[in-house]
């Protein structure tokens, strides 16, 4: 089974040379730490920066330079700042190649819910609805089950939706899955995780074809 860093490490392998990538808050943010350093990738943050660098050294934090999670960051040579409308032109206009975000639920048709639990948690969608409505390549990074042990890969979402028919791939602590429209096609299993364990943790239709290889991380 993978921990959060393991999930991020596996997703980092999906990032290709020349990609502009938007990372959501949580596990997706960790992906930046594991991208190969022999490829050129630029990270976009929807609050208005392209070319995000690592966190600043202590004492060098700048209140005017933050990411979408409101964390202090640095920028790399070649970075740019822009306004929010321009930022979402990049997103809706499909100029961002890969979007990685977290989710509370994903349905077997690619629907995603990650912004609201009615009556309990209403933080808002931030940029998630714009991202999922437009991105061609969306990977969801999440734990396979919630804190109560219930599957997050469902036949249909029970929570208010963030977007419809949009998730293409999911990487969890147990598996890598492709969203096919008919169900979750199992591509890889995490180290020391059996197909049976994945089946047990998946409420939606799990498609298993042939031998399922173990992830190489």
């Amino acid at each position, binding site marked *: 089974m993978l921990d959060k860093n393991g999930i991020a490490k596996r997703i980092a392998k999906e990032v290709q040379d020349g990609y502009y990538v938007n990372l959501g808050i949580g596990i997706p943010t960790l992906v930046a730490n594991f991208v190969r350093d022999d490829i050129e990738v630029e990270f976009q*943050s*929807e*609050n*208005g*920066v392209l070319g995000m660098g*690592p*966190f*600043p*050294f*202590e*004492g*060098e*934090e*700048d*209140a*005017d*330079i*933050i*990411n*979408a*999670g*409101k*964390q*202090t*960051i640095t920028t790399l040579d070649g970075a740019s*700042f*822009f*306004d*929010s*409308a321009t*930022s*979402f032109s990049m*997103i*809706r206009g499909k100029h961002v190649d890969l979007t990685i975000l977290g989710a509370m639920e994903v349905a077997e048709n690619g*629907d995603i819910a990650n912004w609201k639990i009615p*009556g309990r948690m*209403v*933080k*808002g*969608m*931030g*940029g*998630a*609805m*714009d991202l999922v*409505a*437009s991105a061609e390549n969306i990977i969801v990074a999440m734990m396979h089950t919630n804190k109560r042990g219930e599957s997050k890969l469902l036949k249909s979402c029970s929570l*208010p*939706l*963030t*977007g*419809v028919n949009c998730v293409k791939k999911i990487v969890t602590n147990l598996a890598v899955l492709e969203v096919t429209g008919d169900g979750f096609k199992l591509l890889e299993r995490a180290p020391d995780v059996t197909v049976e364990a994945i089946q047990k943790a998946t409420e939606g239709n799990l498609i298993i074809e042939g031998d399922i290889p173990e992830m190489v991380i």
Partner: protein
Amino acid sequence: MINKKVDNIQQALKGVEDNMTLMLGGFGLCGIPENAIAELVKRNVKGLKCISNNAGVDDFGLGLLLQGKQIDKMTSSYVGENDEFERQMLSGDLEVELIPQGTLAERCRAAQAGFPAFYTPAGYGTEVAEGKETRAFNGKMYVLEHAFDADFAFVKAWKGDSAGNLVFKGTARNFNPNMCGAAKITVAEVEELVPVGALDPNEIHIPGIFVQRIFQGENYEKRIEQRTVRKRD
């Protein structure tokens, strides 16, 4: 040059009244119009309808207006950092319109640019699209969203001149440029008010035509919400 400079915060907020609709720039606490917010608190104007990406934190930014129950309605995309906000929203004291962040930015920009409405794919098939016109273009579904209609826009820039030209710094830019000229009156506060001619015309982010009043801001706190650092090796 047409002079937009006002001498103090009182003049800058002249005409602000109860029940008005206000736009306020900023992302989290980054790039918020701190001086304008402090003056709104001081004047204790009530029944405000605020358009701002976030709602501040409990004791800073728009959180200060929430504490004084000065806001009747918030239009935002994310409000996760403010317990008082969540309390007022869940209890029904505060009306909240949560909309996608890109839609919020574009509804500002549409107001600035003279577009009454636009179609966006964001929110299609979700509760955000409920009751709104939808339409297919090239086989994909879009939602009709309308330009904002606000009385005042309060923005914060890094530098500005008395002609109203503005330059922003880092990610403190965010919604500020999109709100300039998107309300009946745009009020810009700046960290550094420079003489006309001191800014390079090539490097101005917002031309003064979008700004009606500009003033030298004071005592910026610029709070950091999530101070994240790395260790030196």
